[in-house]
Every structure is written in structure tokens, then in C-alpha cells.
């Protein structure tokens, strides 16, 4: 089979940063290349250059042996490159059909020929076993369906090279298996696939060869047959990582949080929580597992006071706080690491200090009669930056100048400074590198060991399994199962995550 893509000696510089330094990779027709590395390793930059979103400063890109300059996605598409982005590039209010044919619609007499388009797409859907309803609006689709639309979109444009950017990050285990089947089928038909991920198991399962990147450099390039998970992980991180964190024996104290039969609606007014009850005790981490969008977000918002439940109660430290405001709950001892640190947890355009003082700016001694004591606030934020090892010269810099991991440290510092009795941590390690993951995990266990409660929500099952004392599995706004630490493995939990089973009786089919 011919070589489809060659990226040779590629370098890309951003102000003050070398994003890619002399990186080379190649993939043949009918081959799957795994491109792995931590966040910020430079994988996405490489693929953005291949897809024409930016151009390399040095180096050559060859397609099927011919040197090319890819200046725009339009050119990339013309050259037969398709990309499925991690964040789907779909228009929620347009139909599936419109999304697929956008930019390449067949026309008759100047008008879009819907029938011709549908015929062509149906053929693709049949060939690759990718069923989707063409007339539905994209916002009505599930995550898995959206991804299918993206793949169809690429195939509709006759892509011979397919870039998959972290395609499994948002999928259930079952959906992941399904996707891998589709990729195998594509491969057998001669498609060249570049598969970006940080999940080593999938890389081992599906790729033919692997390129490992770290800090803009290639740290390994090998055939999958020769690779081992451990070896790859060392290449990715550059050192041995120990995600096993020492912890005190499990010895739960009184309940700090009690959630009783809570129901709530999501932003679109649909039921998101259908009678959820659970408790969190002092000295334990309760982990909530589940595919994203099954009510976890709403659950956290109800507990933290941002969303009013339609039914049920929330008790905190033996007090009914269902009607309490966010501020009251914070003052009563609740802290919250939000799942989206940019959208909810911080203001990137404000200074680090502005972000750090949010719990304190209105309280004595930092504020007297509405007037800020800037000296005390400055001292507070400098102390926090130091204690939580935020890498910055001082806290007057804009938060946006920090890396993802350091931003997360700022949020952690702010929430921990409040000395909470309950810490809600949602996706605490999303988008941060392994070094930061380690320190964040340590902090969470520290909170638990010091006799406070932790409510952990994560889409990463590994994280849930390694940190939680008790694991609750959520599906469609209900708790399907509860396990003690060590009682269940990933596979068992995955079954409950998809709603296929329910503890204490079969799941009644709706």
C-alpha cells in the first residue's frame, strides 16, 4: 500500500513556545497510526497543520508522495483529508443532512438537490454501518450519533486520510467498541487513519504503529506489536508515574451531606434528575461514575445551590439547605471545583488575585463596610499562590497567562482556603497534565484524610476507581448501582453506566 501522509521534520513556533520541534510521522493506506501524548504535547498542533488550520514554520508535508502546502481546511478537504475533532464541528440547529453536505452540496438548477445528497449519504451509511437519521436536528442527537455524523461528513467529502482527535473521550465503553469496529472497516477499505488519544488501551487494541510525543518532541516511534503499555506511558511522561496514592484506612464518620429524592430539570427543561438519594460522610470520597450528560452536572448544581430542584431535599451538616443560596452554602462550609474551569470556575481576563479572592472579598477582615483592604487581599493571594505552587511571578498577572494545570491549582487554592467540610470536585483533572493530576489527587485524598467529605464526579473511570471509597453509578438521572472500593472493576461499572443493568432488580425497559 502507498504511503498516504508524510509529515517530515515539522517545527512550529508560537510566541515563547516551541509547539513542535522537528517532528516526523507517516501513515500508509489501510493503516492506523496512533498519535499519543499528554495535553500540550503538540499532537493537536501537528494535526491542525495537516488539516490546514495553520501552517508549519519548518518542514514538509507530503500526500501520496507529492509535496503539498495546505493553507486552509478547504484545501485539506480537497486533498482528501478529513478530521473528526474532539469538540464536534457541527451546527446544532441545522439538520444532520445540512451538516453533512455543507460546503459540498449537489445542486440542480442552482438549488440544492436534496435527493441526490440523501442517496449518496445513505450509501455511505450502509457501507460503513453508520446509521443516523438525516432529517433530525443535530442538537437532538446523542454524543455517539454526533460522532457518526462527523465520520460520515468526512467520508462524504471522499476523505482518504482520516484524523480522529480523541474520539473516545466522550463515548461509553460500548460506543467505543462500536467506533473501533467502524475504524477497522475503514482501514480494510484502504483508508489511512491517524488516531489521537491518551488512552493506551485503545492504542494497543487498534493501531498498527505508534508515535509518542512529549513537549513538542517525538519521544518514541514504534510498531504496536513491539509496544507495551508501561513503555508507552514512560515515553509520554518521561518518568515513572505513581497514581497509587497512600491513604488512611476507610473510617467514615457522621454524614456531612444527605441528598434525598432530588429531582431537577436541565437547561432545556427536560428531567435530568429523577429521584436521586445518597450520602457523603466525613472521611470518605464518594465517586459518581457515569457517561457525561446523565445528570451529573445537574446533581452538582443542585448540591452547590446553582439549580433549584423541583422535588427532594438537600441536607448539609444536619440542616435542610434546599432553599439556601450559593453564598450561604459556601459560608456554611461547602466548596466546589467546577467541571468547566474556564466557563464557570474562573475569569481568564481578570488577575489571578481577582480569581483567588472570590470567597473572601466581601468578608472581614478583607473588607470593611464594603471597602476592600487591598493589602490584606494581596497578602492572601500571594500566600495561596505559594502554598499551592502556582507558577507565576505574582498574583497580579492575568489568569489567562497560566497553563491549564496552574489554573486548576488557582481554583483549588481558592476552594481549599475556605476550609470546607464538603468538597465537590467535578472533573478535577480534565485537561491537565500527568504531573498536575498527581498533585490534585494527593490534595483530594488529603481532604478526605483530614476528616471532611468529598463528592467526586469524573468521566474518567480510572480516576473514580483510584480515589473513591464508595462509587455510585448514574444513568439518565438515576443511581443505578453502588459499590464499595475494590468491589467492582471497570467492566462491571461500565455495564451499569449504559443502563443495561440496575442493582437490586432488572432495569425496566422504558
Amino acid at each position: 500500500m502507498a504511503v498516504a501522509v508524510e509529515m517530515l521534520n515539522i517545527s512550529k513556533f508560537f510566541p515563547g513556545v516551541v509547539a513542535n520541534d522537528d517532528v516526523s510521522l507517516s501513515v500508509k493506506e489501510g493503516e492506523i497510526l496512533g498519535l499519543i501524548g499528554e495535553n500540550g504535547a503538540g499532537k493537536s498542533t501537528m494535526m491542525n497543520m495537516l488539516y490546514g488550520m495553520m501552517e508549519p514554520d519548518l518542514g514538509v508535508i507530503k500526500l501520496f508522495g507529492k509535496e503539498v502546502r495546505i493553507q486552509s481546511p478547504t484545501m485539506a478537504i480537497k486533498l482528501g483529508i478529513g478530521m473528526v475533532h474532539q469538540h464536534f464541528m457541527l451546527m446544532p440547529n441545522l439538520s444532520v443532512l445540512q451538516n453533512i453536505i455543507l460546503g459540498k452540496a449537489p445542486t440542480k438548477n442552482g438549488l440544492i438537490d436534496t435527493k441526490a445528497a440523501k442517496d449518496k449519504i445513505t450509501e455511505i451509511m450502509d457501507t460503513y454501518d453508520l446509521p443516523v437519521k438525516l432529517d433530525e436536528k443535530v442538537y437532538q442527537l446523542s454524543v455517539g450519533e454526533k460522532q457518526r455524523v462527523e465520520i460520515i461528513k468526512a467520508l462524504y467529502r471522499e476523505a482518504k486520510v482520516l484524523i480522529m482527535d480523541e474520539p473516545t473521550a466522550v463515548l461509553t465503553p460500548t460506543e467505543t467498541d462500536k467506533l473501533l469496529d467502524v475504524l477497522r472497516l475503514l482501514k480494510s477499505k484502504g483508508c489511512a487513519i491517524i488516531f489521537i488519544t491518551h488512552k493506551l488501551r485503545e492504542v494497543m487494541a487498534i493501531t498498527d504503529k505508534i508515535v509518542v510525543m512529549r513537549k513538542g518532541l517525538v519521544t518514541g516511534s514504534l510498531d504496536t506489536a513491539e509496544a507495551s503499555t508501561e513503555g508507552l506511558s514512560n515515553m509520554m511522561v518521561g518518568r515513572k508515574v505513581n497514581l497509587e496514592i497512600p491513604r488512611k484506612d476507610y473510617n467514615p464518620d457522621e454524614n456531612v451531606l444527605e441528598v434525598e429524592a432530588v429531582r431537577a430539570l436541565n437547561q432545556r427543561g427536560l428531567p435530568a434528575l429523577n429521584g436521586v438519594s445518597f450520602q457523603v460522610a466525613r472521611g470518605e470520597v464518594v465517586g459518581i461514575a457515569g457517561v457525561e450528560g446523565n445528570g451529573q452536572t445537574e446533581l452538582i448544581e443542585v448540591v452547590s445551590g446553582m439549580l433549584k430542584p423541583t422535588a427532594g431535599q438537600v441536607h448539609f451538616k444536619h440542616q435542610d439547605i434546599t432553599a439556601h443560596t450559593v453564598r450561604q452554602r459556601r459560608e456554611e462550609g461547602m466548596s466546589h471545583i467546577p467541571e468547566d474551569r474556564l466557563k464557570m470556575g474562573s475569569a481568564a481576563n481578570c488577575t489571578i488575585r481577582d480569581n483567588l479572592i472570590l470567597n473572601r472579598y466581601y468578608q472581614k477582615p478583607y473588607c470593611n463596610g464594603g471597602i476592600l483592604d487591598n493589602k490584606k487581599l494581596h497578602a492572601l493571594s500571594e500566600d495561596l499562590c505559594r502554598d499551592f505552587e502556582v507558577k507565576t511571578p505574582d498574583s497580579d498577572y492575568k489568569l489567562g497567562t497560566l497553563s491549564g494545570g496552574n489554573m486548576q491549582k488557582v481554583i483549588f487554592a481558592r476552594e481549599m482556603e475556605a476550609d470546607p467540610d464538603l468538597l465537590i470536585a467535578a472533573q478535577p483533572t480534565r485537561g491537565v497534565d500527568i504531573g498536575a493530576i498527581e498533585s490534585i489527587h494527593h490534595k483530594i485524598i488529603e481532604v478526605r484524610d483530614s476528616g471532611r467529605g468529598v463528592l467526586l464526579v469524573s468521566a474518567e473511570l480510572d480516576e473514580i476507581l483510584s480515589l473513591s471509597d464508595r462509587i455510585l453509578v448514574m444513568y439518565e438521572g438515576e443511581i443505578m448501582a453502588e459499590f464499595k472500593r475494590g468491589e467492582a472493576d471497570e467492566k462491571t461499572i461500565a455495564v451499569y453506566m449504559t443502563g443495561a443493568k440496575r442493582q437490586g432488580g432488572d432495569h425496566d425497559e422504558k
Partner: protein
Amino acid sequence: MMKNKGNNRILSAAGVVGRQAGLIIIALLLATLFLAVSGYEPLAIINGIIDGLTLDIAGTIRWATPLILAGLAICVTYKAEVFNLGVDGQLYMGAAAATAVAVNIPKSMNQAASLVLIFLAAMAAGALFAMIPALMKVYLNTNEVVSTLLLNFIAALYIEYLVIGPLRDPEAGTNLNASAVLNENTWLPRISFFEPSSANIGFYIAIVVMIILTFVFFRTAFGHEIKIVGANPTLAKYAGMKPKKTILQVMAMSGAIAGIIGAVEVTAVQHRLLAGFNPDFGFDGIVVSLLANNNPIGVLFSGIFFGALKNGGINMERITDVPSAVTDIVTSIIFITISAKFVLPKLKRKLAGKTPANEGGK
């Protein structure tokens, strides 16, 4: 490290000021070109500004007063990422309330007391009128940009209604639509040094408002809330603030400041309510505020600059035949260039390398 940081700060501040100065120069050059092409004295506008800042400071102060206040009214809301394009309407309502109160004040009343009454009424009217778009935004999710623009017309027509109808001066000629001249005890004093110009102590009021706002923005918990609500309303909600309340508060503040403009124009400049007395101070206020990077202290200086520009244009038209509308063109060019997010590429690279992410205006 500390010293280095200080230098960076100065560098980035200098960058901002330099950029704004560049915009002004570009606008003035373009306007000069305009004048040259249409056969007028090319240097008229530049001379006008220079005269405004040297020979005729009084006229500059007269125009700077409403412009500074309008700039402050804009920057209060802009900090919270709310766009109050309704300053014109709110100042009309302020003027209406000021007049309505003033005509009912007995001649015998003490001047200071009557002025306090008048200004309180004007501020309340401006704030209340600003509550319409604010409440619509908070409760109905209405875009305040469109609603405030529409309300401006309603306010202007309302003034027209007043001066043709209920408040009309019975002794005025048929061509003049205005209220009766107010009693002298309701006049806001002019600055005696500048007599006979209509430069008035409204200028001092503007400075006081500026100082209050600076204090509120940088030294109070409320100021911090405004900043966070503007930067990220979701964060504000998550941190336990009440973004909706903050939006209502800043709109009320903005409307009240706009109301002051109306009261100043009526009690110090016109001494009566005049249909269409407002040459779009509200829109000019946007430029004033943007040129100052929405910083209240900066608003003082950019307000004086635009005051000089406006005054220069008017003087120019009086002495020569150059149309004063050329100053509107200068303002608009500054306006549109400031809306762009571009900096000179070279400067940008330099700043990007040396200082923390440097934001170049909105």
C-alpha cells in the same frame, strides 16, 4: 522580579496610550484630508482643537462636561459587559424631570436646596428610564442594545411632546419649541472665571462622579462584583454573587449619571427645556469611554479631548466656512478604528513576548 514587573506594567500602559494616540492621529489626518479634498482650509480642525485647549478653554469645558458624564455613564455598564446605548434617552428623561421640578419651585426657595431637588429628580428619572431595558434584559433576556436604541427615540419624542404641549412657554414664538425660562434660583451656577461662557460647575460634578466611580471600581466589594459579572457571569453566579442584581444596579447608576447630564444642560446651559437640545452626547460617550479603555480617570482626559474637538468644530464653523460636522467624522473614525481588535503586528509580537497577555481594547 518586582522591578521587571513594574517595567512591564509601564510598558503595557504606554502601549495602550500610544495606541489610542495613534488612533486620534489617524482620524485627524483623515479628516484633514477630507477638508483638503473638499477645498477647505486643511488645518482648520487641528487648529480648532489647539485653540480649544489654549485660547478657549471655557468652551472646551462646556462641552467636556456632558461628554465626561456620558463617558462615565457608559463605562459603568461596560465594566459589567452591559451595553447601555440609551444614555441619550436617559438624559432626556433627566432633563424632563429637572424641568418639571424646576418650574414648580417657588421663586423664594433657596438656590442650593432647589438644585439638590432638581438633580435628585433628574437622577431618579434617568435611573428609572434605564430600568426599562435593564429589567427587560434580566427577566426577558432582551438584548439591551436594541431596546435602548429604540427607547432613545421614545424619550426624544416625549421631550418634543412636553415642549409642544404641557411645558410649552406660552410666550415663545411659533418656531421655538421650548419650556419657559426657569427662575434664576434653579440655575446651576456657571464658573465665574470663564464668564460669559456657559462652562459651569457641572464640570466639578463630573469630576466628583469620576472620583466616586474610581473608588467604587477599584476599592469596593461592589466594584469587584461588577468586574467579575462583566468578565464571566457564570463564575459570578457560581461564586455566590447575584449577576442580575448587579446588572440592575449598574444600569441604575448609568441612568442616574445620564440624568445628571440632562439636569446640567437644562439648569446651567439652556435654562429651559429645549426640543432636541442633545447632540447625541450618549453616542459620543461611548467613544469617550472606549478611548479611555473604560477607565474613569481616563474618561476625564478623553472627555476633555472630545470637548476640545467639539468646541473647535463649532468655533471653526463660526469663523470660517468649514462645516462643524467634520468633528463628527473625526469622532466616528476614532470610533470605528477603536472597535477593531488589531494592534500593529510588530508591537503585538513584542508585547506578547514580554508581558502577560496584553489585551488591546474591545
